[in-house]
């Protein structure tokens, strides 16, 4: 069976899309559009350049231009029944707080946090994907992380429910 060069990048694209859109069906739409667009433009891809960054660039542009914003990041995950005291419960609460804090970032900040923190793109790759100078990527990243930290500590923005 032919192993398409895109194949190994699909799980990462999908993880990013799900984290970004928080809606699996929209995320898979975005991944599918990205792959189809990528295949159409594949002749323009230069052999030896970074395929992963190239695919993420396509995805980012599709996301910016095509994904309806109204649906995103508005639904809250329904509260789960957490038995306090257990380590797992603690982790789940932290994770939920984190998701809520992430939701309070601007879209620009969230994108950069996910590309670098989750997908572990290098700063150069991220600069390529977002079509920004590396310096801008760095300062935006620093601001986003600090805001997220303050939100998690309950020191900025709308108060988050604290359990600890």
């Amino acid at each position, binding site marked *: *069976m*032919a192993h*398409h060069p*895109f*194949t190994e990048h*699909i*799980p*990462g694209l*999908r*993880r990013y899309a*799900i*984290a970004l859109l928080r809606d699996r069906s929209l995320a*898979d739409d975005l*991944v*599918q559009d990205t*792959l*189809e667009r990528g*295949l159409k433009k*594949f002749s323009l891809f230069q*052999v030896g350049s970074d395929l992963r960054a190239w695919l993420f660039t396509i995805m980012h542009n599709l996301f910016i231009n095509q994904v309806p914003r109204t649906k995103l990041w508005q639904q809250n995950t329904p509260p789960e029944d957490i038995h306090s005291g257990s380590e797992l419960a603690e*982790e789940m609460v*932290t*994770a939920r707080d*984190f*998701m809520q804090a992430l939701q309070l970032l601007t879209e620009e900040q969230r994108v950069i*946090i*996910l590309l*670098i*923190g*989750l997908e*572990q793109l*290098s*700063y150069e790759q991220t600069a390529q994907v977002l079509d920004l100078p590396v*310096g801008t990527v*760095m*300062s935006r*990243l*620093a601001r986003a*992380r*600090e805001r*997220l*930290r303050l939100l*998690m500590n309950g020191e900025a923005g709308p108060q988050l429910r604290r359990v600890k």
Partner: protein
Amino acid sequence: MTDTYVATEAEIQAYVDGQLSPTQRTQVEVYLAEHPEVAEQASAYQKQNQLLHGLFDHVLDEPLPERLTSVTTTKFQRKVYRIAAVLAWVMLGGVSGFLLRGEVNHTLVATEPFTERAAIAHVVYSAEMLHPVEVGVDQEKHLLQWLSKRLGHPLHAPDLTGFGYQLMGGRLLPGDTGGAAAQFMYQSKTGSRLSLYVSVRDKGTAQTAFRIEEQDGQQLMYWVDDDLGFALVGEKDRKRLLEMARVTYQAMSY
């Protein structure tokens, strides 16, 4: 030294993401040990990365939805073969089948080395919309003279109109023994394409009967006549393929 060194914002981020060289990393670690507030920030950022992975890494282990895998396996498979085949030929200077060996053997089991080339050439150029041939049928005389000269044998493009195939033209290709090979491309009214591949072989190769290779619905008819190997690819009907092979054999024996 550490009194004057101040880790930049960018270095802190790169530290968090593990994007520093070992030397830079050590330098930042020394700085963080002396600046607990910054260290606390850095550690919070690392925790953010861990949380992201904890929340979303499970996606990587999920089976992909069919609509995502099908994008790269069916609809565009031909294009992939084409690109890979072009790479194999262009970049490896005619060492054909290198990138494709596994794939091509899977679909077309070739017992003669030139048949594998014939199969690849067919996959590559029959899919080509704009440039299926190098020299078109409008210059048929020139095409035949040129290819005959390069292969060192008088070549004739068989008339396959009786089978509904019109000659489109042909091209020169690298052959398997360092010599040249020729490909004639034919097209039917419905757009399906048939190619005749002719390759120079080592002198004294035994003559073979018409042989057919079939796998996954693709068929290839080949034979060896003195030091030329012939292969016809692209026709599904075995009987028609055999008839066309006979016509070709006769046309080439003038």
